């Protein structure tokens, strides 16, 4: 966990505490209609032991960013420096070494496990690839991991289809933990699960973080969960980070007009609060990431947009203790 001092300074570099430096990273895809700018000039620091939440509308580039961070997609431009057990730049050449330190838990617990492999061999696979331990110790580790995630050793010989969604998600977590990573990208790890199972998984991720001093990038739709689990939250819109603050700061004093709309749009499971809530319902639709607008990406839906917003892209700057990209937020 980070101490309060570092949390109040979302972007200041605290050398020893920095795990990942993301420097001006973009990811563009060539599609038939042109260039799709899924992730656009992102600058971000991830600290050791923290949970960084990443939220934003569907299609805004969250998963793409997570995959770039994992090295699954090479960045189109920019640099990612990793300061873990080893100091490396995340490039194709270093991917194997990196995959020993970083793992991803996928959104869909159904399609992300190979149906022909037993649960035991799914969990063991990473250890074999990284030549970790001898066969006997690996077997023991599989049992330990199953128990760690709340399953039991008898499950090792069974196949994924014999498990419920929540149990499969636990298998995915055990697989990610097997190689003893320091950093885990959780890409909507609970969206596909029932409400009653979601909290099991969140509690588990939380306990594991404490026990193993893990760092998480936690991508999610459910803002209540993100608020609960994250130390800091980054809000993304159309491939750009538009606001970054500690999760308490973000909820107490939301600055960016899009973050405001996003937070006010989340329905609260409480009828009285819902009835009395003031809403900023956004009109319009998200612009296409192919040929995105040249000014502020949010200008077409923003209630405060003026001429400068349509002409000039606002920079992500420190204002009122948050990093925020908006022309109309005061210093």
């Amino acid at each position, binding site marked *: 966990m980070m101490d309060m001092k570092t949390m109040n300074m979302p972007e200041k570099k605290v050398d020893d505490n920095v795990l990942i430096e993301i420097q001006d990273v973009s990811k563009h895809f060539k599609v038939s209609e042109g260039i799709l700018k899924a992730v656009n000039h992102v600058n971000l620091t991830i600290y050791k032991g923290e949970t960084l939440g990443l939220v934003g*509308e*569907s299609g805004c580039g969250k998963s793409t960013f997570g995959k770039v961070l994992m090295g699954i997609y090479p960045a189109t431009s920019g640099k990612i420096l990793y300061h873990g057990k080893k100091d490396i730049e995340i490039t194709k050449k270093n991917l194997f070494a990196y995959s020993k330190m970083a793992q991803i838990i996928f959104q869909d617990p159904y399609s992300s496990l190979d149906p022909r492999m037993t649960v035991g061999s799914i969990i063991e696979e990473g250890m074999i690839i990284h030549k970790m331990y001898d066969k006997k110790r690996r077997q023991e580790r599989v049992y330990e991991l199953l128990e760690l995630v709340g399953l039991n050793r008898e499950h090792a010989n069974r196949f994924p289809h014999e498990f*419920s*969604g*929540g*149990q499969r998600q636990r298998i995915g977590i055990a697989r990610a933990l097997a190689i003893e990573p320091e950093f885990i990208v959780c890409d909507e790890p609970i969206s596909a699960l*029932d*409400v*009653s*199972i*979601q*909290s*099991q998984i*969140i*509690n588990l991720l*939380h306990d594991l973080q404490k026990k193993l001093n893990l760092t998480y990038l936690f991508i999610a*739709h459910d*803002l*209540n*969960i993100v*608020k*609960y*689990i994250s*130390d800091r939250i980054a809000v993304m819109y159309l491939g750009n980070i538009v606001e970054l603050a500690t999760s308490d700061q973000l*909820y107490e004093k939301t600055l960016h007009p899009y973050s405001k*709309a*996003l937070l*006010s*749009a*989340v*329905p*609260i*499971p*409480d*009828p*009285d*609060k*819902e009835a009395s809530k003031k*809403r900023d*319902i*956004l*009109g*319009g*639709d*998200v612009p296409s990431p192919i040929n995105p607008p040249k000014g502020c990406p949010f200008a077409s839906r923003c209630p405060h947009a003026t001429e400068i917003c349509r002409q000039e892209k606002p920079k992500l700057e420190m204002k009122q203790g948050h990093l925020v990209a908006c022309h109309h937020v005061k210093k």
Partner: protein
Amino acid sequence: MSKILEVKDLHVSFDTYAGEVKAVRGVSFDLHEGEVLAIVGESGCGKSVTAQTIMKLNPMPPARIVNGEIILCDKDIVNATEKEMMAIRGKDVSMIFQDPMTCLNPTMQVGKQLTEAIRNHRKMTKEEAHKEAIRLLELVRIPNPEQRAKQYPHEFSGGMRQRVMIAMALSCAPKLLIADEPTTALDVTIQAQIMELLKEIGKKTNTAIIMITHDLGVVASMADRVVVMYAGKVVESGVARDIFYHPAHPYTKALLKSLPTTEMSRDERLVSIPGTPPDLLNPPVGCPFASRCKYAMKICYEAPPAEFEVGKGHHGSCWLPHPDCPKDQAGGEQ
């Protein structure tokens, strides 16, 4: 307010080669004009099957209505023929789905689809129907409806397609609109637009709405009344405030408690419900929630709990507070 729909003791099964899947096992509720009823519950508990049975949209076989009555606008439709149902669908009841492409034709202009749907049920000339189509597109807040009507569904964004589908569903002024997870695939800002729209339409046209969702936030924002389902049964029903503030059934209580609130600190643990729902091929004889219920008593495993009245218009099915609960068992683990 007159009653639009009454579902009584509905049982629906699927005959599969593994055996009879008892998807809906005795569901009852009713619905009045202009009312919004939310059906909530875990994945697989029978929400969609219940809704599809009201429209008789599930293919029979394998689906089969084993028992029960569905009285829609004073008429029992359980034995209605497909021809009769075709007249009822659209006119009395319409449905919107999670995936709008299931009811939009990808090769036909949006305006044309709407015009056809209107003319299928209402006597109108082409021009009148076209005007009505534009009015509906305006109602669901599609900008530049005249131009948009000439476009095809793939030229619309996800949220706009959803709105077009709502326009289609409204084209025949149904008395009942069933929305099965209409916003699950959308993100929150678009979801908020759609919910606002549905609320407004319900008020304006007095259409009754059944809203199926597992998002309790959506329920709190829209529903007048709530039906909570678990493993094919209704475990609790009542007005939204009663369900949220005075839940009676242990499943409802656990569900509400498992939600994190924005006030929670990171050091508090979330409440979770251990275990998984029962298999509907072999549903348990007693209370379906017993194996996961922290209050479960011996009788819970032996006999299904009967419904009891928690308060006015608020019902639950649980042995714990039930007057017939054996006295030596009740409250043992509270």
